[in-house]
């Protein structure tokens, strides 16, 4: 397989309500990525634009972005897999380059969650699940993840305190990430206040909506060596899907799509979970990070709680996870999230992560889930 590298990364600040439209919002990440890569618009052969269209007022946003960012007349593609859209975008861009069709491809993710009212946003978010057989029973995203939390609690004896430890870690790193939306210090007592959304998940078990954008520039091996001093290589890409509806799930203690995506990514990269130096996982809810520890093989099934109790997923631990604050603190602008996770890992592998830097990180992993485990994307990156 031909080698493909990430040669530039960018991200807007993630904020509650961005004052501009999706055009300006996207430009913020684009400008940073282009500056990082040191290239001009005419050097981009194609673009992949990623968002969840239910939040967009603008139809067919890829065309808009290609125009606004000065990428006409090159081809553009619109890719969607809800919360993992920009990881699916990475996979698409990789294929475009590995096939030899294009040499330099941009992956742009964005979401302006505040484009619609938060009540409407809540209604639309529910439509990311089965609207025909589940919505009539009052389902919503936190409830779906809560069913999995209950499954994990029941099977392994996991507790609300274990989940609170994950939020505590997140807030520690959110404080030092200047692009995060939630930058407040949280105590365990505060996190454990019994303000339930859907039991056993409480307010601080849930990530915040945010507006944001992310941008990645990918290049073929030849172009990367020509254009970039510290290319970060895509070593493994795993993607898998699982039933959208709960009727089709035989387990509620993990996500099948993540387990399979991880296996595929490790196989392609030729590594094991123990080889990973730093990871970004999709912690839209604390339970999602807990399941990720096990689905990715950082812990045996049921041993996820041990990992956080012993602080092994802190920066100084044996497998640092979400040391940029994760979705819980950074915020979760649906279409931009995967690209933001990938940016964090690229910065880590280049040694450019500032106060969040994990020393000597050589192999990094991104776990990005769409919907409640409908789409699983796991991507492995390396310095070589």
């Amino acid at each position: 397989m031909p080698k493909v590298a990430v040669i530039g990364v960018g991200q807007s600040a993630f904020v509650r309500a961005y004052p501009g439209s999706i055009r300006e919002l996207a430009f913020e990440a684009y400008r940073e990525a282009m500056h990082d890569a040191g290239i001009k618009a005419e050097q981009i052969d194609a673009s992949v634009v990623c968002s969840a269209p239910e939040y967009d007022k603008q139809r067919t946003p890829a065309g808009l972005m290609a125009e606004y960012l000065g990428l006409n007349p090159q081809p553009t593609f619109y890719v969607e897999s809800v919360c993992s859209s920009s990881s699916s975008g990475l996979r698409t861009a990789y294929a475009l380059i590995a096939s030899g069709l294009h040499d330099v491809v941009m992956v742009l993710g964005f979401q302006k969650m505040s484009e619609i009212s938060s009540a409407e946003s809540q209604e639309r978010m529910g439509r990311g699940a089965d609207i025909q057989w589940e919505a009539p029973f009052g389902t919503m995203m936190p409830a779906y993840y809560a069913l999995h939390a209950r499954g994990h609690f029941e099977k392994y004896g996991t507790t609300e305190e274990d989940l609170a430890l994950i939020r505590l870690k997140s807030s520690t790193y959110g404080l030092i990430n200047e692009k995060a939306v939630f930058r407040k210090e949280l105590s365990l007592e505060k996190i454990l206040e019994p303000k339930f959304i859907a039991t056993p998940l409480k307010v601080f078990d849930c990530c915040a909506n945010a507006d944001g954008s992310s941008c990645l520039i990918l290049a073929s091996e030849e172009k990367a060596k020509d254009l970039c001093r510290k290319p970060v290589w895509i070593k493994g890409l795993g993607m898998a899907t699982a039933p959208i509806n709960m009727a089709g799930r035989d387990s509620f203690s993990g996500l099948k799509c993540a387990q399979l995506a991880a296996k595929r990514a490790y196989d392609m990269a030729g590594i094991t979970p123990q080889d990973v130096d730093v990871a970004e996982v999709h912690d839209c809810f604390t339970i999602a990070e807990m399941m990720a520890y096990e689905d990715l093989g950082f812990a045996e099934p049921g041993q996820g709680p041990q990992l956080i109790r012993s602080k092994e997923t802190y920066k100084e631990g044996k497998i640092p996870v979400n040391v940029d604050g994760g979705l819980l603190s950074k915020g979760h602008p649906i279409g931009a999230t995967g690209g933001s996770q990938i940016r964090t890992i690229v910065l880590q592998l280049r040694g450019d992560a500032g106060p969040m830097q994990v020393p000597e990180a050589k192999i990094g992993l991104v776990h990005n889930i769409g919907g409640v485990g409908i789409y699983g994307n796991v991507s492995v990156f390396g310095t070589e």
Partner: protein
Amino acid sequence: MEIPKKPVPIVNDWARPFWDAAKEQRLVIQKCKDCEKHIFYPRIACPHCSSDNVEWVDASGKGTVYSYTVVESNSPSAFLKDIPYVVAVVRLEEGVQMLSNVVGCEPGEVRCDMPVEVTFEKLDDEFTLPKFKPATR
């Protein structure tokens, strides 16, 4: 702000027998006549063997709670007046799973593996939803 209506089931020729039966307080599911497996949710053909030789059968209505959650806030706005309510995945005796609500007890009494049986709640003149309550014995 006007409170939106609760989402109603989406009905077409393949889903109609399920909702017609629910209106008559019967829980029906599909069964494949070729591979003999039960099927939920209703489909145009068997998801196990692709046969379209699929029939409707009465389900016993008995099952157990596989997983559940009590929604206490931030529900879709049409459901705010129902808070707290239980969303559960129920495993029917026939081996298939349904997402529904557990009613007829305090939300705090619901547990995993709790035996439940079907009950019916009228949504409006057109629809009745199959829900579950603690089994009577």
